[in-house]
């Protein structure tokens, strides 16, 4: 979990996102320009109308002045404002949406690129899938930074100045007053809203995220909760906790209500003062009285620019929280770096592990001095109880885990000297948790071998005992898995993962518990096929069931982070006291 909301500077944490906007500044700039045109047209239209009414009413008092009154210019001005306001609005909507959607694409890539180099095992430990789905929502929150905060604030500033200029042309004093009063309301409102609100909106985010995680956790424990009669009490607890979050929401609404009241009151005072000043000047003959209405209506229209600002600033806490969460992931999860190019090329597909020390993701010791040499093309089974460090060893080989000490060599070249491309091309891996992408089964398999054709894929699936399953799929390889791959049973999913790894042309194959969840018959069949497909390739097979391993070149037993014994299966079986023999006697059916 990311730590609590910190009150560090907004600029610091949001800075990188402001930078992201730069490539789109043209779009965003045009958006603001159009928005300004719209606002100024509104101000111009209503102020001009107010003046036109007053002046024509005054001129209409006598027939002579009425006839001499030039109504052409003001009415043309009003009509012009109608057109610019309409066009401005359309332009603003199109350009600002274009700009923000482009920004959104960029932000997504940015977030992905920020997460991509992080150690996958550490990432998983850090907060699993739920964190990632929140990150997705965060990207959307970040884009409102421009759309709702930055652009409207800048436009409001310019519109207020514009309004001040319109009024100031006729009376400098009133113009200055109006500008400063509107600026004051434009600053005080949002500032107060941000000041009082940002902690609460951030807290809302925090509670919301926590509750959402809690809900999804409870949903996945639904069978247990129902069976143990706890679903109702769990949902009651959730509903109660939800009220805390909703209280924050009500607070935000109250704050937004308060800012509306405050800004309306300030507007009332500004307008009244501007009207009073204009009337005072008019009564002393130093201002044309027809300009009184113009002043008042201009202030009224300019207010539209600042009306919605407090709400946007209040929500800044949400935006910042999102940025902080991403930052927290990046700082807490170590990244793994690779050289750009291979320092040396591996000579063959042999593996040499010497004196390897590594820790589990939770910091406890996983491997303490493991040494193991596999020659090119050798098939080796690595056995051991759960928690003995087998998976960590595999993770160290694919550099998901950085060892504390020791050397890992592939074809006599240190893994650390290999570029990521070479490393990935060298290893074909089927981990314990097989992720199926929301894509067809074909695409999921082709991930390993883009060139693989349907026949190869089908043959392999049939060989691994998935033929019947494939036949039952409505569209064969073109079918889509359910999310989480739940249309495959646990054992089937494993075998699908094995198929994916075996399709890959890599010279070293690493399989983590490929036969878990299978009955003995199927397990033996799968093992045979694995061996057949791995002819000429180096195979490291991690398992805790020894049945059928007699066919492999060697077997090793790992326990408590140390290699306990390693030899040919026959030799190990010949020694009745060996752990391999004991294991082999115990596992049945």
């Amino acid at each position: 979990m990311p730590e609590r909301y910190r009150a560090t500077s907004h600029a610091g944490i949001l800075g990188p996102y402001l930078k992201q906007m730069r490539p789109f500044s043209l779009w965003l700039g045009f958006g603001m320009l159009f928005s300004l045109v719209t606002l100024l047209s509104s101000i111009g239209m209503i102020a001009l109308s107010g003046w036109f009414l007053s002046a024509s009413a005054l001129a209409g008092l006598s027939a002579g002045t009425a006839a001499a009154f030039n109504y052409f210019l003001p009415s043309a001005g009003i009509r012009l404002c109608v057109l610019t306001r309409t066009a401005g609005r359309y332009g603003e909507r199109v350009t600002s949406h274009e700009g923000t959607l482009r920004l959104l694409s960029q932000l997504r890539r940015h977030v992905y690129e920020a997460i991509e180099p992080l150690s996958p095992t550490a990432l998983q430990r850090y907060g699993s899938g739920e964190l990632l789905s929140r990150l997705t929502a965060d990207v959307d929150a970040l884009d409102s930074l421009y759309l709702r905060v930055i652009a409207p604030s800048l436009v409001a500033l310019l519109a207020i100045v514009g309004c001040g200029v319109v009024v100031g042309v006729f009376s400098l004093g009133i113009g200055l007053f109006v500008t400063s009063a509107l600026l004051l309301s434009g600053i005080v409102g949002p500032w107060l809203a941000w000041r009082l609100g940002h902690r609460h909106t951030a807290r809302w985010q925090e509670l919301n995220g926590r509750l959402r995680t809690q809900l999804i956790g409870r949903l996945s424990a639904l069978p247990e909760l129902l069976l143990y009669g706890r679903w109702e009490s769990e949902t009651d607890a959730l509903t109660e906790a939800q009220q805390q979050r909703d209280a924050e929401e009500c607070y935000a609404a109250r704050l937004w209500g308060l800012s509306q009241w405050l800004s309306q009151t300030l507007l009332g005072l500004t307008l009244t003062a501007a009207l009073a000043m204009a009337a005072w000047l008019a009564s002393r003959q130093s201002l044309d009285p027809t300009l009184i209405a113009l002043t008042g209506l201009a202030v009224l229209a300019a207010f539209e620019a600042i009306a919605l600002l407090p709400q946007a600033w209040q929500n800044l806490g949400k935006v910042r929280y999102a940025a902080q969460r991403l930052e927290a992931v990046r700082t807490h999860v170590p990244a793994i770096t690779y050289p750009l190019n291979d320092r040396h090329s591996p000579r063959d597909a042999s593996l040499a592990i010497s004196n390897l020390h590594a820790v589990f993701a939770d910091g406890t010791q996983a491997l303490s001095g493991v040494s193991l040499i596999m020659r090119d093309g050798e098939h080796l089974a690595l056995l051991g109880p759960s928690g003995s460090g087998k998976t960590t060893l595999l993770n160290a080989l694919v550099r998901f885990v950085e060892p504390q000490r020791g050397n890992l060599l592939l074809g006599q070249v240190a893994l650390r000297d290999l570029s990521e491309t070479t490393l990935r091309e060298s290893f074909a891996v089927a981990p314990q948790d097989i992720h199926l992408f929301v894509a067809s089964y074909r695409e999921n398999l082709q991930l390993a071998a883009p060139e693989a054709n349907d026949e190869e894929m089908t043959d392999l699936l049939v060989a691994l005992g998935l033929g019947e399953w494939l036949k039952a799929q409505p569209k064969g390889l073109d079918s889509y898995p359910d999310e989480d791959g739940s249309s495959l049973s646990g054992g089937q999913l494993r075998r699908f993962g094995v198929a994916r790894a075996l399709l890959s042309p890599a010279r070293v194959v690493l399989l983590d518990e490929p036969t878990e969840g299978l009955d003995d018959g199927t397990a033996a069949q799968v093992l045979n096929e694995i061996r057949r497909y791995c002819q000429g390739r180096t195979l490291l097979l991690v398992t805790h069931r020894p049945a059928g391993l007699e066919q492999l070149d060697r077997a090793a037993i790992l326990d408590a982070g140390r290699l306990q014994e390693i030899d040919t299966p026959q030799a190990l079986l010949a020694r009745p006291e060996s752990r391999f023999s004991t294991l082999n006697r115990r596992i049945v059916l």
Partner: protein
Amino acid sequence: MTQDTQTSRRWLASQARHGGHWPYVAVIAGSASTLLLFVQAWAIASIAQRMVMTQATFADLLVPLLVLPLAFCGRGALAWLKTEAGTRAAVRIRQTLRGELLQRIGELGPLWARRQHSATLGNRVWDQVDALHGYYADYRPQRVLCLATPLLILLTVFPLNWAAGLILLVTAPFIPLNMAMVGIGAKQRHQAQFQEMSRMNRHFLDALRGLSTLKLFGVSRAQAEVVHEVAENFRARSMRVLRLAFLSSTLLEFFSSLSIALLAIYIGFVYLGHFDFGTWGGNLDLFAGMFILVLAPDFYQPLRDLGAHYHAKAEAEAAADDLMPLLAARPPVTKRRHGWPVPERLGITLENVTCRYAEQSAPALDDISLTIRPGETIGVVGPSGAGKSTLFNLLMGFLPPESGMLKTHDGTHIDTLAPEAWQSAIGWLGQRPAIVSGTLADNLRLADPDADDVALRQALREVALTDWVGALPLGLATPLGDGGQPVSGGEARRIALARTFLRRAPLLLLDEPVASLDRASEAHVMRTLARLKQERTLVMLTHRLDLLALADRILVLDHGRVRAIDTLAGLHAAHPGLLDAAWRHAENSHA
């Protein structure tokens, strides 16, 4: 308008009742605000009239200058009230709906929930319910105000000047027209965009979740481009739609500007004597003209606000489409007994039971008849897909039988019992036991909320977790689950096994109880099971001979049917091929 839109609208409207009186407060506050607008217009128009036309002194302006800020202050207060009332209404509605959804999920059961995928379900219960907020907080009150405010303004303007009223009235039909325009296709459009958006989000999420797989196959770096490309495609498709969609809001902007311009020009021309209609035969003074002009922008304002809330409506309708089937999916409600005393010992008889999973043609259990005697231990074997897990789902009441019946040993029909009553007789260890976020003690107390620490420690001892707990920094209070102490598969299974000990249930269903355990723990658990078997009815799914040796009888399932049920020895005698492998290994180990 499609049938669907109608139903989702009706549904949304019907849920508004959960908001209590708050929705009305919001509408009343909004309407009262229009009345204060008249005061504002009066004050501004009076000042103009008095200063321009009657050359009044500054003192004559005192009343309008005092009333004006008060009117603004009042409108601000009403806006505040409207905002709070709307939010409260929406919060109440969401809380009620979420409660109903959670209850419904409990009624529909885990098999149904698994079909929905827990993240999708979570998204519905959480995000989709929240998506209703804007609709109830803003859109619905605003829709009423869209009619009330223009009507109030028209009623005030007409007596003053019919031509001005007519200008407003003529543009007024554009209000419903505009509402329709905004509405036509907008839902489909919005829904299409909504779907695109969630598809894009799903893709992004999928890429992040599958990051280690992408890495293993060396395509993770290149995926950044794909992520960008998918988002850019989304942008291109959205903009194509939006460029058209914005035309309708632009049209609204145009009409509201046009009516103000027409009003100003008309009134000006009346003053100048070019026009002499619309005044009901009287005079139109500057006051009346200015009054009308100040009101004009607010004639259209509610509709512009409605447009701003339109996305809330579309979002809510999309959410409603998702939520309605969930709330409508009612499991058959029959009168069932709650007060069933859980017997000390429990046996079950299945008579010709057939079970089928939803949307599957082949039955998962096909005409099974079987008697499990009280206190008996049954081992269940069979290839994967034979119906072993289905048998558990059936016994736990998660999967109702399609035909046939289940009875307890004393003849009670299980389908006459309330599910909670029946389930209280069962303890269960599943294939992938759930660890809920909470402390270790919380996780154990799922099975018995009243268990004290002594009982918890005892249960942990039974499953050989004492050393593990001892090594935990906070012992029983150690947080597990997301972000807490990581729990390996083997540990999770043992915690789940410990739960079944805490649960004093006469029937235990265990799925591979010693899977992924090390040898010492395995032996320990095995001894515990042997003791447990003395006092309870045990059904175990297992492939292991040493566990099968504990069983009184062994049930061999194949393709959903009973292939054999007999003692281990009987089975071996009758079906020599069946357990060959098992015997071979067993003899090896005795050799």
